[in-house]
């Protein structure tokens, strides 16, 4: 059968209109201000293949991001563990220092200071006794008065210096008991308190980090899961189209 040229042109225009009407919302990738004469995108096999490839890539990226998130989570956990361990050690050291001070250092310093004080007092007492003995012996006879005075004057000075040394030692002991040791005790208690706070802070930070990490991982896993599902859908749809086309042909 033979058709006239005018009839052929009219058929082409109709087909084009029909094609436009069939695309609608199913052709989101159509270029803006696109060619009205182009075929609908959803039906373009190349376009479909690109979409699929892009989705597959997205999935690969998401999987890698998930791996990175897992490694990051492990690193964060280790760091948090280290922080807690360090804080624990600091607290232990501070408590040990405090215990050592209270149980050993403080009593030793107090006893050592007292021993020094007692020695100083005994030395002073011995100087006093020896001077008294010398004076008593020298008084027995009028003899060598000048030499005796030289010896006695040194003895008196020795006694005076012993007395002054004892007074200084006494003041030193008082300062140690009233100032140095309480100050040290307070400093050590503050160190323990600070270390306890540091440990609590490290433990809280670890818990917070743990939740944040869990969330990150969950998001990454869900993203992978979503992409897998999308990809499956796309592949299924593409398979159906291909089957339909094959049946039509």
């Amino acid at each position, binding site marked *: 059968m033979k058709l006239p040229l005018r009839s052929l042109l009219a058929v082409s225009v109709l087909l084009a209109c029909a094609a436009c009407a069939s695309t609608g919302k199913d052709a989101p990738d159509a270029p803006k201000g696109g060619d009205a004469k182009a075929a609908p995108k959803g039906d373009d096999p190349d376009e479909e293949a690109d979409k699929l490839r892009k989705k597959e890539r997205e999935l690969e990226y998401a999987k890698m991001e998930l791996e990175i998130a897992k490694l990051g989570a492990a690193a964060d956990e280790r760091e948090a563990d280290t922080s807690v361990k360090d804080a624990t050690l600091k607290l232990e050291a501070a408590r040990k220092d405090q215990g050592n001070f209270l149980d050993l250092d403080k009593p030793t310093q107090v006893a050592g200071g007292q021993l020094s004080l007692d020695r100083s007092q005994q030395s002073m007492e011995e100087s006093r*006794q*020896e001077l*008294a*003995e010398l004076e*008593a012996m020298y008084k027995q006879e009028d*003899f060598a008065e*000048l030499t005796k005075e030289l*010896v006695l004057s*040194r003895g008196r000075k020795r006694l005076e210096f012993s007395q002054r040394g004892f007074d200084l030692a006494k003041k030193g002991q008082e300062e140690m008991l009233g100032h140095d040791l309480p100050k040290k005790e307070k400093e050590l208690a503050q160190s323990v308190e600070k270390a306890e706070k540091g440990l609590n802070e490290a433990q809280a930070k670890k818990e917070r980090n743990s939740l944040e990490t869990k969330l990150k991982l969950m998001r990454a896993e869900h993203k992978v899961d979503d992409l897998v599902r999308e990809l499956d859908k796309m592949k299924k749809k593409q398979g159906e189209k291909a089957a339909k086309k094959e049946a039509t042909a």
Partner: protein
Amino acid sequence: MIGTLLLACVLQDPAPPKAAAPSPSAPQAEKSVPMVGTGDEARTSISRAVAFLLAKQNLDGSWGTSSVESFFELNYSNASFYAWKMAGGALCTMALLAVEETPARRDALERSMNWLVENPIPKRGNDWDIDNTWTSLYGFNAMVMAAKDPRFSEGKGGEAWSKKIRERGIGFYQYLAAVQEPAGGWGYYEGPAISRRPTWSTSFATACVIPALLDAKKLGWPIDQKVIDRAVQYVQHCALPSGAYSYGFDPIPRINGGENINDIKGSLGRIQVCSWARRRASDAKITDERIRWGLERFFENHRFLDAARLMPVPHESWYANAGYFYFFGHYHAALEINQLPEAEREAWHAKLRPHLLKTQWEDGATQDFPGSFYNVTYATSFSILALAAGLPGGERIR
């Protein structure tokens, strides 16, 4: 008050305590030394020792030099070497006075005596070194010994000698009286205060001259009894409860514990001279029993003196014994033996002799401390005197 009580306790001078057992690390006595020595062995030793002294005597009658001859003694005052020369010469003179006379020995004795009385009495060396005190201590001893010897007081020339000896003896005494420290002793170094009259002294230096002071007073020399009394009280004060004598004078004597020079083992060279002097001063506490106790400790612990002999550093041996304690200690042990009843003396001397004989060298000399030649003269002389004291007539060595 406490000091007075302590002092009273120390001065109680209790009965001699029993000595502690020797420490395991203590040096052992020389096993080759015989247990006893005879009088003949002593005479032989004396002959050889005197021959040595005669051979080494200078023409002027002295021994040695007035100069330092040893690196060990460079720290002393230069003046001390003349002082030691004269102190050693005094001991040589005493040794020659103590031995049997021969023409050569008489000649040597007169020359040494002449040198002693003609040359200046040594003066103090410096602020701390007053070793010239030794010269007056032994110079005085020598003059008193000579004054009692008829050879220098009777017969031809006796009067002239007697006058010179008396004058020189009084010269030595005047020095001693001038430097007797306030507590009553004599020393050879300065003490806590540097002064014309020294302020440090030792028990043994003080004790060694007390009998001569007593004898000099009997001789009619102008000796102040107070000088003697002070010295005797000083030595009595140095007596420790253990039976030992403290080295120096402490207002309140103390023992530090452990290995100390004031233990018996560190006091072996002092116990004999101090007891001898106190006995001569009629101290009733120094009984025969006390003397025997001291001699027993001397022999029981003799290894400590052996170990120290010839050690070059003073007091470097056990219980701070020094080499120069040896012959000083043996000489005074011999004198102390002669204070015991006559019947028991020979046994003690026989026990003492081997410790002198074993030290004699081939040339007849002996020594207990390294140093200049005076160390040889004093040691050899002390040995002669100790051995001579154990022979008949030895009692005149006092």
